[in-house]
């Protein structure tokens, strides 16, 4: 187990590992995406109240889930960075930020497009929308802090502290905002006994959610490759590789 972990701590091994698994990830991602889109756009029945416009949930909901999931990944990486100082955790953490910020933006934009016909307004100061917007600012804050500190070794640790402070605050912010105002429809999937969403609608949604996860992993690994090359640019294995390719 530790030998396995130790191997992943070595940048060249990790770099080659990424190169090896990326093609498979692409295949799985496109397969899931096509299947999910087919289910979402063709086989799922139209909603009895919202008609066809409900179909935007197949982008909106997975993006919103991912926006929170990515922050949790960042928080776990931050713990590893601060306690064990693993280099790969640092790379994972910083590679996730931009992807997470983009998922949050997608969730906000699609939500706004959906809100216009449903609520009659592009934006309402509803609890979930507002806490998603605040989440976006947390992501931007993390990026800004990372870019502002020139020594990247220190920057990543500063970012880790900030992410952990954020993770303590996210539930507080979420529930404060919820108390403050709520208009958003309640969760329809996570009721354990019987989801209030029809099964034909649910399956494509879950498939899309998994597809989004793979999309995140692919993006994360591409970013991670760049980060590895930047931080290892003075080492011999990177130089050898560049020589081989040119």
């Amino acid at each position: 187990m530790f030998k396995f972990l130790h191997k992943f701590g070595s940048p060249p091994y990790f770099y080659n590992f990424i190169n090896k698994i990326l093609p498979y990830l692409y295949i799985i991602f496109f397969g899931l995406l096509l299947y999910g889109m087919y289910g979402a756009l063709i086989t799922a029945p139209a909603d009895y109240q919202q008609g066809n416009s409900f179909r935007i949930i197949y982008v909106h909901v997975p993006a919103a889930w991912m926006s929170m999931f990515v922050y949790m990944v960042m928080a776990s990486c931050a713990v590893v960075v601060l306690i064990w100082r693993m280099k790969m955790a640092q790379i994972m953490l910083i590679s996730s930020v931009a992807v997470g910020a983009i998922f949050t933006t997608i969730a906000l934009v699609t939500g706004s497009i959906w809100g216009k016909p449903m609520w009659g307004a592009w934006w309402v100061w509803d609890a979930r929308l507002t806490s998603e917007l605040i989440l976006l600012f947390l992501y931007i804050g993390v990026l800004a802090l990372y870019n502002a500190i020139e020594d990247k070794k220190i920057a990543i640790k500063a970012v880790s502290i900030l992410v952990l402070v954020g993770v303590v605050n996210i539930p507080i912010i979420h529930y404060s905002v919820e108390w403050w105002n709520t208009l958003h429809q309640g969760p329809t999937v996570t009721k354990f006994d019987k989801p209030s969403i029809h099964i034909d609608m649910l399956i494509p949604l879950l498939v899309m959610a998994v597809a989004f996860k793979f999309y995140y992993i692919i993006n994360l690994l591409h970013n991670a490759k760049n980060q590895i090359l930047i931080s290892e640019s003075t080492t011999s294995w990177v130089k050898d590789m560049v020589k081989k390719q040119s």
Partner: protein
Amino acid sequence: MKVFIAIIKRDLLLLSRKPADFYNPPLFFVLVIILYPFALGADSEILKIGAAGLVWISALLASILSLDNIFKADYGDGTLEEMVLSPHPLVIISLAKVVVYWFFTGLPLLLLSPILGLMMGLPSEGIWILMLSLLLGTPVLSLIGAIGAALTVGLKNGGVILSLLVLPLYIPVLIFGSSAVNNSIAGLDVMGSIYILSAFFTLSLVLAPLAIAASLKLSISN
């Protein structure tokens, strides 16, 4: 405890030699509040509805304004480095610095708020609750803000980033602070919001110094 008191004494002494730091935040606070009637109109009904929120937002802005100064001077002349290196727990030292910081930003706002509340047409019931909510809320603002200040102390233009880092984290305090006052004006129960503000206060009092100390250590090594 000795260190705690020593740091507080030292910082208060430093502050008394440079009174500008002491009267700038409250001055800013008053000025921002004076601006609202010009923007919203002098209609006392509108002002009364918005009063709680306006006072709270101004308090928030005033406490952000001088956040940059908590650690800046000590960082500049190397005192902070000595504090980090000293055998005394950094958590206590940073807590002492936040207490002094609150003393010269939070406390004046608290003392000024009844006057401003009267000017905005708050009933006397609301003014008491406003003061109580500020008493519980402004320390939270100082504690959370100090984390941001500690993270950005080594940066050349940390001020802009500082507000980006800290303002989103201020939102819960703002929500419950102003809802307490609004509820009291509407004749509803206020204790719920007050209890939650107290919870925020205790939580940040316990956790924030840890984050501040860790961030200071990082900023020193920069």
